[in-house]
C-alpha cells in the first residue's frame, strides 16, 4: 500500500527543510526525500552570507523577513545556528557602481532597511584593515549577517521531525506520477512509492530534471562557483566585503575565525561539476589580500565548489507550476541560504492558505525573464 502524506518535498537543503518545517508548523504531515545527506547539494557548499541588500521589492522584503527569522532561530528551533549580524559592505570602485548603489540604497530604505552609502574613509572606519586604494565608497548594512548552513538545516530538520514529519535520506526520487493534470505520487530509486496531493521541487541544481519528471520545464541552469576557507584567526568582525571589480570577489570572517569566500568566474562553467582548480586558490588569495593585506599571513585550509542554480533574471522561481499540486522553490541563483527561511515560510503559507505574505509575482512560475537583478 502506498504511504500517503499531506505533502512531499524533494531535496534536503535549506529550501526543502525550511519549507518542510513551516508546513509541519501548520500541522501538515510531510515527507522529505533527500537522495544523499542533508545539505549535500548547494546549501552545504555556500559561504554562509545573509544579506538584505537587493534591488527588487520582493527580494528585499524576502531577505528582510529571512533576517528576522534567522534572528530568532535559536529561540524558535532550540539550536545555536551561529547567526550574527556581522554586516555586508558593497564596495564601489567606479562611478557607475556609485550611481547604482545610491539608487538601490534609496529603494532599500523605502522598505525600512538600515542601509547607508558611505565614503571610502567611512568604510575604513568599519574595517580598519581594508585597503581603500581606488575605493570610491560603499553601501553598509549592519543588520546583514552570517550563519552556519549546517546548523540551520539541522535545526529545521530536527524540528520538522519533532512536529511529526519524516525525512528519508539516501533514496532518490526517480519519477513523479501526474493524473488528470494533478500530482499524485513519487517513485524512488529503492522502488518505494509515496503519495501526496502536494509535491515541492526543492532539488536545487537538480531542479530541472525533477521538474521534467512531472512534465514541467523550469529554466534553471546550474553553474559552478568555487570557494575556499582559511584557517582561523581571532575574530575581528570583518563583514562580508563584496568587491564588484572585474577581478573582485566576496568574503567574510566567520564568527568562528575563518575567512570564507568566492568569486564569480570569468567564464561560466555550466553543469553540476563540483571540481576545484589550482587557479582559483591562487587568484582568490590574491584578490583577498588586495582588499585586506594582513591576510597574507593566513593559510588557506580547504577549497571546494558548489552549484549556483541560475534563472535568466537571477531571481528564484517560487510558485505552483502548471501541474496542480506541483510546487517549485528553485533557481536560487546563489541566494538560497539567505532567502531560504522566508521563502520556506511564504511557500508553506501559500500551499496551505493560497495567499502570499506580499506581492511575490517577481518569483512567479511562467513569468517573462526580462528584468535583471542589479546586485546579482
Amino acid at each position, binding site marked *: 500500500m502506498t504511504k500517503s502524506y499531506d505533502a512531499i518535498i524533494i531535496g534536503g537543503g535549506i529550501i526543502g527543510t525550511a519549507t518542510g518545517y513551516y508546513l509541519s508548523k501548520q500541522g501538515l504531515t510531510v515527507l522529505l526525500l533527500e537522495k544523499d545527506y542533508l545539505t549535500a547539494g548547494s546549501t552545504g557548499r555556500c559561504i554562509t552570507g545573509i544579506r538584505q541588500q537587493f534591488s527588487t521589492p520582493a527580494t528585499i522584503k524576502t531577505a528582510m523577513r529571512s533576517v528576522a527569522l534567522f534572528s530568532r532561530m535559536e529561540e524558535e528551533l532550540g539550536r545555536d545556528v551561529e547567526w550574527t549580524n556581522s554586516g555586508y559592505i558593497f564596495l564601489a570602485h567606479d562611478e557607475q557602481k556609485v550611481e547604482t548603489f545610491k539608487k538601490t540604497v534609496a529603494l532599500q530604505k523605502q522598505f525600512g532597511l538600515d542601509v547607508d552609502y558611505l565614503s571610502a574613509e567611512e568604510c575604513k572606519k568599519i574595517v*580598519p*584593515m581594508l*585597503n*581603500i*586604494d581606488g575605493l570610491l565608497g560603499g553601501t553598509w548594512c549592519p543588520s546583514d549577517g552570517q550563519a552556519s548552513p549546517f546548523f540551520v538545516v539541522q535545526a529545521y530538520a530536527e524540528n520538522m521531525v519533532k512536529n511529526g514529519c519524516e525525512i528519508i535520506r539516501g533514496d532518490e526520487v526517480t519519477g513523479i506520477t501526474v493524473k488528470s493534470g494533478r500530482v499524485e505520487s513519487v517513485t524512488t530509486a529503492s522502488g518505494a512509492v509515496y503519495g501526496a496531493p502536494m509535491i515541492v521541487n526543492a532539488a536545487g541544481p537538480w531542479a530541472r530534471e525533477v521538474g521534467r519528471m512531472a512534465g514541467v520545464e523550469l529554466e534553471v541552469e546550474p553553474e559552478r562557483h568555487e570557494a575556499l576557507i582559511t*584557517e*582561523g*584567526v*581571532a*575574530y*575581528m568582525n570583518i563583514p562580508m566585503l563584496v568587491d564588484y571589480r572585474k*577581478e573582485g570577489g566576496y568574503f567574510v570572517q566567520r564568527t568562528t*575565525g575563518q575567512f570564507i569566500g568566492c568569486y564569480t568566474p570569468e567564464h561560466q562553467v555550466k553543469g553540476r561539476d563540483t*571540481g*576545484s*582548480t*589550482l*587557479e582559483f*586558490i*591562487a*587568484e582568490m*588569495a*590574491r*584578490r583577498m*589580500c*588586495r582588499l585586506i*593585506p*594582513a*591576510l*597574507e*599571513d*593566513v*593559510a588557506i585550509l580547504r*577549497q571546494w565548489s558548489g552549484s549556483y542554480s541560475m534563472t535568466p533574471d537571477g531571481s528564484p522561481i517560487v510558485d505552483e507550476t502548471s501541474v496542480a499540486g506541483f510546487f517549485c522553490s528553485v533557481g536560487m541563483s546563489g541566494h538560497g541560504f539567505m532567502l531560504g527561511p522566508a521563502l520556506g515560510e511564504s511557500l508553506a503559507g501559500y500551499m496551505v492558505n493560497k495567499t502570499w505574505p506580499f506581492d511575490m509575482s517577481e518569483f512567479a512560475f511562467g513569468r517573462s525573464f526580462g528584468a535583471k537583478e542589479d546586485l546579482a
Partner: protein
Amino acid sequence: MRLDQHPILSFDRGKPITFTFDGKPVNANEGESIAAALHAAGYKTLSHSLKLGRPRGFFCAIGKCSSCMMQVNGIPNVKTCMVLAEEGMDVRTQHGWGELKNKPSSRTYPRREMPLLETDVAVVGAGPAGLSAAIYASKFGAKVLVFEENTKVGGQLIKQTHMFFGSRDHHAGVRGIDIGDKLISQLGDNVEIMTETPVVGYYAPGELAVIRDHRLHRVRAKKIIVATGASENMLALPNNDLPGVYGAGAVQTLMNVYGVLPGKRMLMVGAGNIGVIVAYQALQAGVDVAAVVEALPVIGAYQVHASKLRRCGVPILTRHTIQTTWGDGQVEGATIVRLDDNWRQIPGTEQDIACDTICLSVGLKPTVEIFFQAGCSMAKIPELGGDIPIRNEFMETSVEGLYVAGDASSIEEASSAMLEGRLAGLDAVEKLKGSSDELQELKNHVKESLDELRAGPFGEKIRQGEKKLQEEASRL
C-alpha cells in the same frame, strides 16, 4: 632538558641562539625546532584549546596534529614543531586562534604566472618509501622531484636508533638513522629533493600544488608516487590532551633527533614493536620508565626487544590499560587498570603511577587525504591501518599514474616501505621509459623480497589485509 650523553647518538648542537617566548628569553641551538627548544627550556604548554582554553603541548612532532600552533613573529597558527628556531624570534602562546596584525597596503598584488615545476616522476615524502622510489625510478633514467614538508630528509628513519632485522637487502643490522643516509647516498644526479615544501593538493590530471618559499607552485608530473606515511592514533581517556601526553614518534623526535628529554618518568601505553623499542630508547636517554601497559593478552613486539626491556627491570603489563591521567596543567600521573577477557576494566585493580610523561603507542593511521582528493577508490582495511587507496601489485592506485608506497599504503615497517617504494619507482619508470631485462629482474626480485618479508607469523595480519585488498581491487 638537553641530553649531554647518549650511548648511541652524539648531538652536534648548532650555534647558540636566543629567542623570546611570551617576552622571556629562551636559549636554543640552531637546528632545533621552536617546539623542541621550548621543551628543552622546560615549557610544555604551547597553546590553549579553542573552546575550553585547555593547555595543549607537543603531541606528534611531525606537523600533523596542530597542538603546537603558536604566534611566531606576528604570524598566527605556526606549527612550531615544523619551524626551526632563529635568533631574535618572537614566539607567543596562542589562546585559541592567533591574532592577525594589520599590514600597510603598499603592494598592488598584480596577477602573476604561477611557477611551474616539470618532472617525469614526482615523489611526495622523503621517508624510506619515497627515497626508495626516487632511487629506483632515477636508476632507469627518470627525472625525479621529491617533495618533503619537513626540514630533514629521511622521514621517521632519522629517529630510529635500533638495528633493523631481515636480510642484508633489507638493511639488517643497520640502525635506522644510518639507513636514511645510505638511501640519500644512492640518489642519482637526476633526483632533486625539495625540503620544507609541502604538497597541498592534487589537481587532475597529473598535477600537484606545492608551497615553496611561501609561494604556490604547480607541479606537472607524468607519474606521481605518494609516500606520505602515517599519523599516530590517539587514545580516548580523560585528560588525554594534557601536555606530557605524547605520541611515540614525538618522544623519539625529541630524544633522538634533538637530544631533548620528554620528562623524567614515563608510562608507555602499548607493547607493540614501537612501544617497546621507544621505551628502551627512553631508558638509553636516561628517562625512568615506570611500566609498559598493553591491553592485549600478549606482547606484540619481537621477543628480543621485549626481553631487553625486561632485563632492565621495566614491567610489561599485559591485559592492562590506562584509565585516566591527571595533573595541574601538565601530566603528574596516571591510573592504570586490569582488563578482563572481554576488555572490561576490573574494578578494584586500579593502580596509580606517578609520571610526567605518557607515551601513546597505540597504532598508526595512513595519511591518505591526497588519495581521497584525487578520487582514488578507497577501502577500509583495519589490518592495514584503516582507509587506504586500492592499488595493484605494483602500487598503482585506481587513478592512472598515481602510486602509493610505505605506511600510506599499509602500516608496516620501514623495510617493507622501502620495498614498496622500489616497486612503485620501477613500475613508474618502466611505463615512462620502457622495460629491460634488468628492470624486469629487479622488479621480480623486489616483489619476492616483499613476499618473503611478509611470510612467517609476524606477517599474518598484513597477509590477511593484503588478501582483503585484493578482493576489493577485483570488485573495481
